[in-house]
């Protein structure tokens, strides 16, 4: 078994690290050009919207 699997990591984590390192080793900010992600969250209570998305 590979070391990272033995340590309890899964492939999703492996992929995440691999992508991170790849972005880090990209010339001329080619990785920085991409637009950042946005995340909207809203909470619901008893089927009703408690706070609007922010």
């Amino acid at each position, binding site marked *: 078994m590979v070391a*990272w699997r033995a340590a309890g990591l899964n492939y999703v984590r492996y*992929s995440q690290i691999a992508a991170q390192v*790849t972005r880090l080793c990209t010339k001329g900010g080619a990785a920085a050009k991409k637009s950042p992600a946005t995340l909207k969250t809203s909470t619901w209570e008893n089927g009703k919207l408690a706070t609007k998305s922010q």
Partner: protein
Amino acid sequence: MLARTIQRFSAVAQRGYAAAAAAPVKNANPEELRLTFASPDTAVFSNAVVKQVDVPTLAGMVGVLANHVPTIGVLKPGVVAVTTNEGTVQRLFVSSGTLSVNIDGSCQVLAEEVLKIEDIDESAARAELESAQKASGEGSEVARAEAQIRAEVAEALIKAATNQQ
């Protein structure tokens, strides 16, 4: 816990809304190889007919030609080589992702990060390799395993940049 979740989200980052999926190709010839090669923000090939695709997977290098047996696999950092019908070879670095080869002749290579070979910063990769190798000998088992992954990726980047694979 919440902080960790947010951190995870920011680590994946750089994803927007998905575009509508393309309609399936009708009357596609199962005797040819149709490649879809994409990352979350770019499509390098979209259902293009090609001659051959070489993909690095955790189970080893997989070469796909038309009429390949249906296969699934996960990618490991390395160079994907696509041979077009004209015989030109396009080489791109992938960090990780999935490979699927289907019975209808379609093949998907979906990578988390796709990089042109000339966009690899070799000196940054060497620095990353060194720091990862240092870190792989200390800390918890998980920290050591993560450092080993970083070292593996950096090594693959250097190999790709110096044309060793």
